[in-house]
């Protein structure tokens, strides 16, 4: 069922079942795989775990959304500090004198 139905339908049928993240061990495993997926570091087995388990678990998907958002917020909201204009010239000039 999980493979052919949209996530929200699967989540509805699974709503009385225990969630993947309802135990500390499950939560830890879930977050670990989510981070590997978001960092582009997951192997095939972890990708398959993500596709088959996490995507079908409503709470796990919420965690995925949060983790994804944390990463995006860091990338989008933290300003790049501009390099002082004289620094590059200073480095070049010191190197020249070596």
């Amino acid at each position, binding site marked *: 069922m999980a493979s052919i139905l949209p996530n929200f339908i699967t989540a509805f049928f699974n709503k009385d079942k225990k969630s993947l993240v309802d135990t500390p061990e499950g939560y830890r495993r879930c977050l670990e795989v989510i981070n590997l997926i978001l960092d582009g570091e997951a192997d095939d087995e972890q990708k398959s775990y993500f596709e088959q388990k996490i995507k079908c678990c409503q709470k796990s998907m919420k965690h995925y959304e949060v983790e994804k958002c944390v990463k995006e917020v860091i990338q989008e909201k933290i300003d790049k500090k501009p390099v002082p204009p004289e620094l590059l010239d200073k*480095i070049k000039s010191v190197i020249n004198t070596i």
Partner: protein
Amino acid sequence: MNENIENNIPEEEPPLKVLTPKEKKERDDAFEKEFLHLINPLYNFAYRLTLDEDDANDLVQDSYLKAYRFFDSFERGTNAKAWLFRILKNSFINEYRRKAKEPGKVDYQDVESYYNSDDIDEPITSDLRVDAMRDMIGDEVANALNALAVDFRTVIILCDLEGFTYEEMSKILNIPIGTVRSRLHRARMLLKEKLRTYASKMGYNDTLEGEFE
């Protein structure tokens, strides 16, 4: 991109060869081409480590000078950015971090030992709301990041801001990949806690439905 980051950075500075003006110019041109375009991310990294513009300035300058002295041990065409970041990180640890360490400041080793201990019963923390994070301004996110211990901050900067792979981070930081993963995991948990505090101040008190505390 992953290859040979450590690229023979010797412990001691090599003596500089005596070069003819032509050789010196060729060496300088090659160095500039390979490394100087990386000054923006390098300066950002230095600033996020030191949290001080003058210290970041000095740190970047020192790192470039060190890179210049070690340039002959760098294998051209390999991962210049990771090589340079590794030099900067080493300079920071050896000089600036020691200088900046305040009495009574929490020692990172203690923090990491605590968080890496198998005995720790990791709480299942309630999570943040996505809309709360989206409403945050850059300063709040930066403050949350800056409030982390420097080693936790470093892995987030390298991974999320600079896009290094775990393998590259492992080489830059000289730690096993497993430690990169666990440190990143802890860093993100701590960062979320900081962000949650901001979210709470903004009036977002709801957590994920059905979450544990």
